């Protein structure tokens, strides 16, 4: 449980750390004194003794001193860095404290405010540039690098640029390992670096009718395709909360996909054709585990159960929730309850993700892991007019503004649902793709991603599924 997070100020760095009075009750009991010592563990496992001092009269104005200045110099903390102090209860009942440091991360020169710690950021970078070496990521050189990173807070940007050739090789290797799932739209795959990333949570949002469900069905079908066609040769879990999944549409897309593959195979090696078993549209539908959810309790129950389900069905390579927000928008009067439920749900998904990464380590380079593609309809509202307009006018940067403004301006109002959902999900949704209309074309925009550049690409929804936008549209765009 986090006690407080703070962006460090000049006084905090140079003298002592001040923090809100209301957080005092989470700290050890002061008794009759005005100071108390407590032990705090940092990410590296080092223990620091902090002293919390309060004023006896009027406003207590609590501050932290003693080892604080040592901590600051050891971690090279600077103004603007974010620290989070949290309290953890262990089995014995006595609490211990943890402190985490989050430095602003720069990627490709863009300041990305990631809600992750340094260690996690490094992990993501490793995945981004060397997915193949994830398993042996703890060998000598990387471990040293990791230590160096923590000690010197190495700029990740330099780290990538230092060895571009190697990164390219690894990227190539990554493609050959098929850790990406094609969307069947080449332009979209291009901006996504080959497709939807399988090691991360991807959030896809957009207005009704933009093609969220279509993309979901397409992914559920594509995941079953053999790896030479951009699939993962696995099965899909499709969780439908809205009732928009239509069997006939899935069949249509599946049949078109199977047709495309047999077409493709004719151009490919003759021997491959012989050894690969034929896939039929019928089988494709059989390999989608479909859940229809009618209430948020069911949704929670299902997510709890998913863990067990996936360990029984190891060939599941994609989980699609369409959409995650629907049942959480049905007017929770009790905000605390809603927050708690969402927290629980997030926690379960953490567990799920952990379990799957475990499976990954066990299976070594069998490329199985789970992608949780979360459809989160942004809680647009009448009052969001301005944001939406901004976003539509200038998709490149205003999209970020839209999300920021939702979180800040409506914090006291009931937009907290989208806020809390957004907040608890933002940790898990490593990538966020926004779908929108640009004149008469559908566009997908990478709104958030730890390593992809923000980019937009047109796509179209055809009878055969998600495909490239019609060529004449692209020409007109170039002109």
């Amino acid at each position, binding site marked *: 449980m986090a006690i407080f997070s703070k962006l460090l100020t000049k006084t905090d760095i140079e003298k002592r750390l001040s923090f809100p009075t209301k957080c005092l009750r989470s700290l050890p009991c002061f008794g009759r004194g005005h100071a108390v010592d407590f032990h705090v563990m940092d990410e590296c496992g080092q223990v620091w003794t902090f002293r919390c001092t309060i004023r006896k009269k009027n406003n207590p104005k609590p501050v932290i001193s003693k080892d604080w200045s040592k901590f600051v110099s050891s971690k090279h903390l600077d103004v603007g860095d974010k620290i989070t102090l949290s309290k953890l209860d262990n089995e014995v009942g006595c609490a211990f404290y943890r402190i985490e440091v989050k430095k602003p991360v720069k990627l490709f020169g863009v300041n990305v405010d990631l809600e992750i710690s340094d260690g996690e950021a490094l992990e993501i970078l490793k995945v981004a540039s060397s997915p193949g070496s994830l398993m042996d990521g703890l060998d000598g050189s990387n471990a040293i690098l990791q230590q160096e990173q923590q000690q010197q807070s190495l700029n990740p940007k330099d780290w990538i640029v230092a060895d571009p050739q190697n990164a390219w090789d690894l990227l190539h290797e990554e493609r050959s390992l098929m850790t990406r799932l094609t969307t069947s739209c080449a332009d979209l795959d291009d901006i996504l670096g080959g497709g939807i990333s399988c090691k991360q949570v991807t959030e896809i949002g957009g207005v009704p009718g933009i093609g969220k469900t279509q993309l979901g069905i397409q992914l559920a079908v594509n995941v079953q395709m053999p790896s030479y066609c951009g699939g993962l040769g696995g099965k899909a879990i499709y969780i439908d909360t809205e009732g928009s999944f239509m069997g*006939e549409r899935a*069949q249509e897309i599946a049949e078109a996909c199977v047709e495309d593959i047999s077409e493709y195979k004719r151009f490919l090696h003759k021997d491959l054709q012989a050894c690969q078993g034929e896939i039929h549209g019928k089988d494709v539908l059989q390999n989608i585990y*479909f859940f229809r959810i009618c209430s948020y309790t069911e949704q929670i129950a299902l997510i709890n159960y998913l863990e067990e389900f996936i360990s029984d069905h190891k060939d599941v390579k994609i989980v699609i929730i369409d959409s995650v927000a629907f049942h959480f*928008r049905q007017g929770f009067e009790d905000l605390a309850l809603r927050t708690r439920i969402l927290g629980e749900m997030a926690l379960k998904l953490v567990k799920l993700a952990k379990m799957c990464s475990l499976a990954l380590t066990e299976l070594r380079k069998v490329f199985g892991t789970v992608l949780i593609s979360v459809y989160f309809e942004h809680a647009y509202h009448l009052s969001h007019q301005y944001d939406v307009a901004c976003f539509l006018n200038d998709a490149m940067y205003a999209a970020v503004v839209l999300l920021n403004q939702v979180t800040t301006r409506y914090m006291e109002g009931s937009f907290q649902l989208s806020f809390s959902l957004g907040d608890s999900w933002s940790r898990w949704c490593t990538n966020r793709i926004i779908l929108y209309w640009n004149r008469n074309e559908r566009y997908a925009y990478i709104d958030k991603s730890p390593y992809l550049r923000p980019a937009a690409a047109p796509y179209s929804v055809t009878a055969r599924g998600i495909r490239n936008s019609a060529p004449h549209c692209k020409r007109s765009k170039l002109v």
Partner: protein
Amino acid sequence: MSQIQSDPSTHNNLRPAFMTPQKLLPVEKCSLGCPILDCCMGGGIPCNSITEIVAESGSGKTQLCLQLSLRAQLPPFLGGLSASSLYLYTEFPFPTRRLHQLSSALQCQYPQIFASNYDPCDRIFLQSVNTADQLLDIMPQVESFLENSKTRLPVRVIVIDSMAALFRAEFENTASDLIRRSSLFFKISGKLKEFAKRFNLVVLVTNQVMDVMDSGEGVNEVRIGNLSGMYSSGRRVCPALGLSWANCVNSRLFLSKDEYESGLVGGGEIGFLSRETRRRLHVVFAPHLPDLSCEFVIRREGVVGVNR
């Protein structure tokens, strides 16, 4: 009929059961009785789904609703569901005369199906609803009505005509009211979707349109669905109830009407300028349909599509 039985596992058992989409096939649909309209909607209005009809008044929304409730009574080989329907109306008065007119036209069309002593109107259950809260309040009654159908035919169609009227009066344009309103949307639609799934229902709701006044930024300017702009009677319109309601429905259809001068009739020196109304049905968005539209006319015997 076996599919109609409620599945207890859906709401009692906390371990949801999976199925494969194969089981969703074929999607049951209720025909509107016109091949052109049915073709535009992929065979009819789908079960287990909420379909919304958006149009200005006098475009034929209610006509389509009445037609669907009557057609649902036909056996499956004639495109129906062999089912009766529940019609929740919010706008007064209920068009009883028109219903009788359509009903007798249907009886004439299928005299062998409708025995002389059986009036199709008896298979349409009417209930007036005045406010959104009332609609939520009667949901338990609706549920028990769906469960213990003492009628010969089970209820498989729910029509709400119109949704916009429920929200017209008591909500102001303040933040708290808008929040309350959108949370009501999601509650109502959540309940309807649950019923639609348990009883394999066709849910048809109608919605009104508002004129788009400003051409500047505004939520009404956010494009939803296939049409870059909705035009009816020469005016730019947008569906009422906003974006959050659009998130609550599965498919949206839009009916437009436009008047054309079709030329002089009467001949001679004194000709009359005849005006003709052209109506079109557009698929705004639907998970299973492409961007289609078709023209239709409203005749005495109902709504019929025309090829032009």
